[in-house]
């Protein structure tokens, strides 16, 4: 049901996405721990293999592209922990997904408050 809402530009993480993205999200959940973040940084491929990521998910992780990660089943709450590894904030990933520069994305936020 929820997955068929089709709200423009708005992913909905329902059962289909939960199934598709399980391995990817489980890996990202592990990034709550610094030791795991460090292990990923030291050996990305080995770490992804440990979590049985699909090829699509591995490519999405390699791309650092949030829309691609969402398409591969990623949930933004867990993806935020992946982004954190690179010091990326929710504004950085907002800019990336909207195709705006970071400054333009921030200005867009300010404008909506006026």
């Amino acid at each position, binding site marked *: 049901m929820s997955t068929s809402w089709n709200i423009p530009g*708005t*992913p*909905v993480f329902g059962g289909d996405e939960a199934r598709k993205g399980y391995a990817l999200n489980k890996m990202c959940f592990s990034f709550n721990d610094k030791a795991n973040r460090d292990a990923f940084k030291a050996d990305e491929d080995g770490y992804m293999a440990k979590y049985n990521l699909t090829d699509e998910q591995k490519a999405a992780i390699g791309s650092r592209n949030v829309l691609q990660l969402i398409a591969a089943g990623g*949930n933004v709450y867990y993806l935020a922990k992946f982004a954190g590894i690179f010091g990326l904030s*929710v504004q950085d990933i907002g800019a990336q*997904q*909207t195709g705006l520069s970071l400054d333009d994305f921030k200005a867009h936020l300010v404008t909506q*408050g006026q």
Partner: protein
Amino acid sequence: MANVIGGLATSHVPSIGGAIAKGLQQDPYWKPFFDAFDSIHAFLEREKPDVAVVIYNDHGLSHFLDKMPTFAIGAAEEYKNADEGWGIPVLPAFPGHAALSWHIIESLVNDEFDITSCQEHLVDHAFSLPLKLMYPDAKWPVRTVPITINSVQHPLPSALRCWKLGQAIGRALESWPGAEKIVVLGTGGLSHQLDGTRAGFINKDFDLLCLDKIVNDPVALTKYSNKEIIELAGSQGVELMCWIAMRGALQGRVSQLHSTYHVPISNTGGAVLLLENAPRAQAMAAE
């Protein structure tokens, strides 16, 4: 009989923790949000609550998709904050109130809420930052009860179900035999969206409507479907559920003591609301 003295609702974005760590409270970007807590501090100093029941959504620290509860309640004597992966400072552990937690769980299950009871429960920024905003010295003077609402994995509970949850929490608190003064928190929102090409969406008009309705006509908010809330408030705007549940727990006549709305904080329509609950308000009026 325990005394529910009020409700506090606030945004909880992680970057609040960063701003505190960097001492940016008086920076123009942050000042309107942090200044809102002057009123909260005055209220807390006057009322000195003993317990904070914190209704919030876990962001992937305590719960994962392996076993994702709709409603979970902590039932421990202590709750640890922990690293969430993006570098905001970890706050000191929070004292729990396990006996009250079990009383709430008993009462809610008896009321046909299908609770997941958690004797181990890490609390994330959505729990810890509001308490840090209330008590900047992080010497927690309140015992706490964490209550989480699933906002990660659809199907999410409806606004109406969360309203009913809050009402049931309110009944549980009223039937608690202890004399504690209790404040109920609802954390999250208001409008924001982190994912998709609509990321950065904020809806000021809807946020202002929510800030009015949550005080004066909360039932109006229970009419929205989850799809409508996401359309109007963004995918993470569903955190409004925590505000609705908080409001449901205030069983008496409610008066607004403070309201702030400030856009943006991080990607979010930042909002702070302080409500006094009827029995206390009546007592003061009678003084």
